[in-house]
């Protein structure tokens, strides 16, 4: 039986130089209501342990949004994030879970419509794949 993932169970970690700026414009968009939206300084702040810990504590999925590559204000952050997401995905596979419970999107501060699409797409994915 499929259940709808409650928005509040989705964690979105937005780099304050890209995803967060995009979010500020569309903060009242119905698609984004009720999500746990957090500002992080850079996608490079995220590590596998943190992602797994969030899932472990009840997050239905974690969406990390960083700047496009070579657009990271901190130069290397999004490259590091990509590697760490890979570690988290490997761990999820090992645990017998869906590795796509964590997702990394690269988009710029100008792309609020793509942020909305990314969130909606992730929600849809989790809805389609959540089992209970």
């Amino acid at each position: 039986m499929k259940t709808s993932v409650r928005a509040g169970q989705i964690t979105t970690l937005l780099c304050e130089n890209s995803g967060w700026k995009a979010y500020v414009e569309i903060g009242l968009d119905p698609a984004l209501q009720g999500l746990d939206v957090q500002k992080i300084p850079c996608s490079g702040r995220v590590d596998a342990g943190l992602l797994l810990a969030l899932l472990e504590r009840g997050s239905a999925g974690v969406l990390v949004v960083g700047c496009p590559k070579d657009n990271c204000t901190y130069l290397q952050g999004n490259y590091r994030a990509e590697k760490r997401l890979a570690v988290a995905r490997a761990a999820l596979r090992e645990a017998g879970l869906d590795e796509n419970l964590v997702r990394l999107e690269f988009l710029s501060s100008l792309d609020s419509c793509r942020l909305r699409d990314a969130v909606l797409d992730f929600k849809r994915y989790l809805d389609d794949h959540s089992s209970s």
Partner: protein
Amino acid sequence: MTGIFLCTCRRKKDPSAWLERAAKSLAGIPFFPYDAMCAPEGIRFAAARVKGEKLDKLLLAGCAALLHEGYCERISRAAGIPASGIDAVVLPARASSAEAVRIIRRAHAALELIPRFEIRRVPLGQEVLVVGDGQVGAQTAREVAALGYRTTLIEKDAPAACAAAADVEILSPATLASLDGRPGAYTARLRTSREGERQETERVFGAVVIAAGAPGADTRAAPFSPGRVIPLADLEGSIERQPRRDWPRLVAIVLDFCVDEGRASTEAALRSALAVRERFRREVTVLLRDVRVAARGLEALYDQARVAGVTFVKHAGSPRIRSSREGVVVSCRDTVLGEDVEISCGLAAVSVDGLPACADPSLAAAAGIDLDAYGRLQQNNVHLLPELSNRQGVFVIGACRGEAYQPEVLRDARDAAFSVHALLSQKILKVELSHALVDGDRCAVCLTCVRVCPFKAMRIDENEKKADCIAESCRRCGICVGECPAKAITLPAYADAIVMARAGMAERPTIGAVGER
């Protein structure tokens, strides 16, 4: 104490019971509903409550307007609370009071975990080091000195060729051996040699400008041979010296040999081609991938060359050059005709800018500056362009980082001087001590953070035998936090516990089997 300011402007239709319920649920926390938090009265209201209730942090709840950086700056100024002590959350338009309280409580719990950061005031040294005495370097030294900074210029070759201003100290031959420290106080180890004797001196500079000139080209990539295949730069010399009778019937000029070149090469090729054509009445064929004319006057120069009878062959990249009995044969795919062509000439001049760079990584290593995919200084990141580097207060300009096109040299020098001035004219740098913190007990001194920090903000404290973060160099990105294998580093404003609190989750790991859902 953290005060919660709830903007009620979008809740005019809400029954007052909504607010009452919310206030009741938040009992014990200073809670201030107000009609229009984003308006100046709202800001004044918050500032007054901060004073009256001795609040040291603010949590704003309402619409997305409260999230704007500009708003945060204004309320921060009015209330005298640093931005790190202010947070804002969006409440859904139709949120129930319970829903709103849940969101507020989480953000509140997270904000409570953010420490109050002290501000450190560090002096910014008023001395500037310029590396390289080429046109860009010399011009930068003049510009910087004219702004009143004590300027030192070093040049690796002796004697320095530049005629910098009288108030610029010139050291040559001298190289940069290492650069440590922070913006405003970089310690540079300078290696000088006098009469063959090497000396090392340590000098402190507030800022550094690197204008070290073009990296060497890998000349093995083209079959250079004297009198037949020569660098384009040498062609200019031949034009001055070589009598007309010594010029072959056809001269080929080859650009974009391995990598795409820019306006500087195009201009040089056009000028040389015109000179050979007009002075010696010889045939000239310029082979290039594209004519790069994106600057004032270049299109006219190109027109002039065509009118003068210079032939242009646009190749598809990677032309081949071989010797023949008559001289040299250049072959390539002609993309206009769509066929392979061979040009036999007596002399071929190849632009070395089109050869792969064989950059000397020693300067980059000494200065702690990253390289791009060509091996030139400065990563190809839009936030760095054109003059910033991965180290604050270290600027890179000129051919060491990219194409140096003559009319832009002056601009680049001024750009760098402006950056130096923007940093150092503050005299005192105010630094909020919210930088990455290393827990000495956990630190295994593994050097991971030192190696991964893009900004060279991490070093090993030799006394404490642990990693240490330079607050002035740290950009608060948290890359080191995620990388540290000992979990010894935290970014105090974005600690794991704070992320967990905002997500409404338990701080301590769940020891039980299943996460608490």
